[in-house]
């Protein structure tokens, strides 16, 4: 198990490094940060001065090495845009995104897994149809649109929920629903498919034959096996939610890390983008790692892999 973990961690580190290098090169190609910093009023001399001040005139590899060296010491520099330490900026924005991501995935799992199980027990029933409809609708509806519909209903008509901001827990209800809704279809389909496959397996027939209760058969024997791919998927979805809640954060004015990343790209705010990409990459890595460990616990056969 220890070797398994170490191997995974080593691999994860390489992934993080590759991601940060690729993103650095892409940003480098996408436009001159000196011009973005200098703003609309700047003339050529201003831009040249800023270029020299920030060291943009150095070769790319030197700049990347410089960034990496400081990043290894947890020094992510100062945001070109806000002129505040990137670490502070991200720490402040990340809490909103983390809250939203955790709520979103919990919401998605709470709805999608039971629905998937019921749909599998009664395939082609009304509830299966409803589940199918929900998942198709979930994938088809743009999230900003869904968010605005919720705002119209709950903030304008009923006036029971605030439309924007992140001041209280009520502010997170609508964003959680919108964000979670998009993770639901995949989780539900996978649960249903997994359950259908497992329920027709020989050991389930054996379990039933030895007289185990239906609940025990479903949850102890079937779900435990069917849920394994769902755990991996949920981990990926969680990573996606933390990095990809841009639209939701924008519609509900949450000012989280996803929106910060999106805006920082437009502003050519290299230090902020680089640090955020690293953070998001680490999230993916940590969640897939946790999913592997969790799966290894659920299925002892995987521990040796």
């Amino acid at each position: 198990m220890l070797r398994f973990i170490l191997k995974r961690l080593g691999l994860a580190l390489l992934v993080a490094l590759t991601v940060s290098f690729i993103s650095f090169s892409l940003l480098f190609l996408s436009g001159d940060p000196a011009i973005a910093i200098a703003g609309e009023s700047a003339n050529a001399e201003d831009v040249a001065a800023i270029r020299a001040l920030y060291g943009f005139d150095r070769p790319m590899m030197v700049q990347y090495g410089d960034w990496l060296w400081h990043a290894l010491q947890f020094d992510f520099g100062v945001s070109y845009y806000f002129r505040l330490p990137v670490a502070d900026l991200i720490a402040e924005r990340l809490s909103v995104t983390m809250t939203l991501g955790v709520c979103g995935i919990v919401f998605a799992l709470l709805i999608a897994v039971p629905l998937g199980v019921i749909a599998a027990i009664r395939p082609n029933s009304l509830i299966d149809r409803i589940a199918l409809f929900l998942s198709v609708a979930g994938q088809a509806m743009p999230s900003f649109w869904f968010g605005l519909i919720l705002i119209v209903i709950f903030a304008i008509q009923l006036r029971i929920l605030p439309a924007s901001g992140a001041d209280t827990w009520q502010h997170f209800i609508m964003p959680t629903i919108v964000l979670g809704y998009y993770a639901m279809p995949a989780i539900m389909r996978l649960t249903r498919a997994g359950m259908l496959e497992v329920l027709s397996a020989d050991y389930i027939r054996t379990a039933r034959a030895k007289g185990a209760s239906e609940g025990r058969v479903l949850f102890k024997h079937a779900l435990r096996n069917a849920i394994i791919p769902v755990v991996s998927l949920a981990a990926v979805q969680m990573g996606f939610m933390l990095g990809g809640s841009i639209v939701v954060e924008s519609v509900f004015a949450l000012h989280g890390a996803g929106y910060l990343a999106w805006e920082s790209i437009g502003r050519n705010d290299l230090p902020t983008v680089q640090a955020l990409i690293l953070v998001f990459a680490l999230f993916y890595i940590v969640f897939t790692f946790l999913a592997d460990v969790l799966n290894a616990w659920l299925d002892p056969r995987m521990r040796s892999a």
Partner: protein
Amino acid sequence: MKRRVLTGSVAALALFSAGMAHADKSNDTLRVAFTKELESVDSYFNSAREGVVLQRAIWDGLIYADPQTGEYSGNLATDWTWIDDTTLELKLREGVTFHDGSPFTADDVVYTVDFVANEANGAVTQRNVNWMDHAKKVDEHTVRIITKEPFPAALEYLSGPVSIYPSDYYAEAGPTGMGLKPIGTGPYKVVSVEPGKRFVLERNENYFDGPKGQAQIGNVDIRTIPDVNTQIAELFSGQLDLIWQVPSDQAERLEQMGQFTVANESTMRVGYLAMDAAGRSDPNNPFTKLEVRQAVNHAINREELVGELLKGKSIPVHTACFPSQFGCAQDVKEYEYDPEKARELLAQAGYPDGFATEFYAYRDRELAEAITSYLNAVGIRTDFKMLQYSALRDLNMKGETPLSFQTWGSFSVNDASAMVSQYFKHGELDDARDDAVLAELDIADSSTDPEVRKEHYRTALQRIADQAYWAPMFSYNTNYVSTAEVSYTPTADEVLRFHTMTWN
């Protein structure tokens, strides 16, 4: 496009379902939305409209320009005289205090001017400050500002972007500290700043009796809400009292409902096509030919752009400056919409079947697409490329854009030098590189005689129009939407002035 249709229908749905919104008049707090995350409240370290709005609330300039008439009167200074072409002596108002209680004196002016005018300190809006060389204290309430060269537009800048900071505090806190906890003399004090997200102001009870007048509304709570639809929803749900920069189609629907006050005002921003007349992108590019540039000017239906897309108080523009700016002469050659003539001119230039060109834009995709259709109609086949602002600017500076859709807002400086001189003095953004224009602008920019300035701006602008270096098209406008409880008359410079707002 899909997004537009969908958002349009959400707004419509919101309109049908909305009840009556109520302002937060009861606790004297005006709630306003910003769309953009402001980088820093320190006005020398942001280049955003939102920054100008906060600057006018928190700080004061030495001089005040009436937003309606443009007339100058004393603000932090009470009197001023030009001692010579480059020395402006100002008498300062006595008895003014900063929000932290420290008195306002000549030292504050000297420190602020010396700090921001020093390029090494990195003020981002260099153009607003780099005309000043330094300041000199004469006595406690008299100060001299020395300009690098004769700079007749000085009063315009001193009443606009240049505001005075408290010397001791600024020396200690620096731009970062000033951005997080701003201190000024202005009609509003800052209660709290959450960078980019939220700004809370309260009325300065000790504000001096200046031309801005005392603020009427006690508190201002500004939140950044990036999505305009969410802003409108918050207006409906009674969580916001005032929004601005509302797109014209949304503003029209809001106005039809009757429960909100919708005001439209012009801005100084001008949209124009820049053409590579100097042949920087390619010495043989079609835009080096006068007939081609004139054809582009004739191909654009300015009235239609204004009437159908921009609406409101936008106007067709024919000059390389905004008509209200000092020196922006309007007696220049105007190119009426005439696609037939455009085709003839192209034929004369040797392009009877038109030609293909790259066409760049960085904002307002709809307008850019309308422009491409006008150009395509006369035979100029556009390879349209929408870029991020900084990426396009990069190409502009390297002279790699044969044709691009640009806009310029002049930082609300009501002087033609803020626009025409920015682009036609052989800088890296100058695609004309016309020595005759440069000579005229040099005189106009540095003469202290207003009549001489006017005359030379006119000659320069006439030559620019005759040579069709640009195709100026239109001015922008903005919509202000507020609940019925808020009374505010917007000005043509796109600056929200909280101190002139009142409750109804």
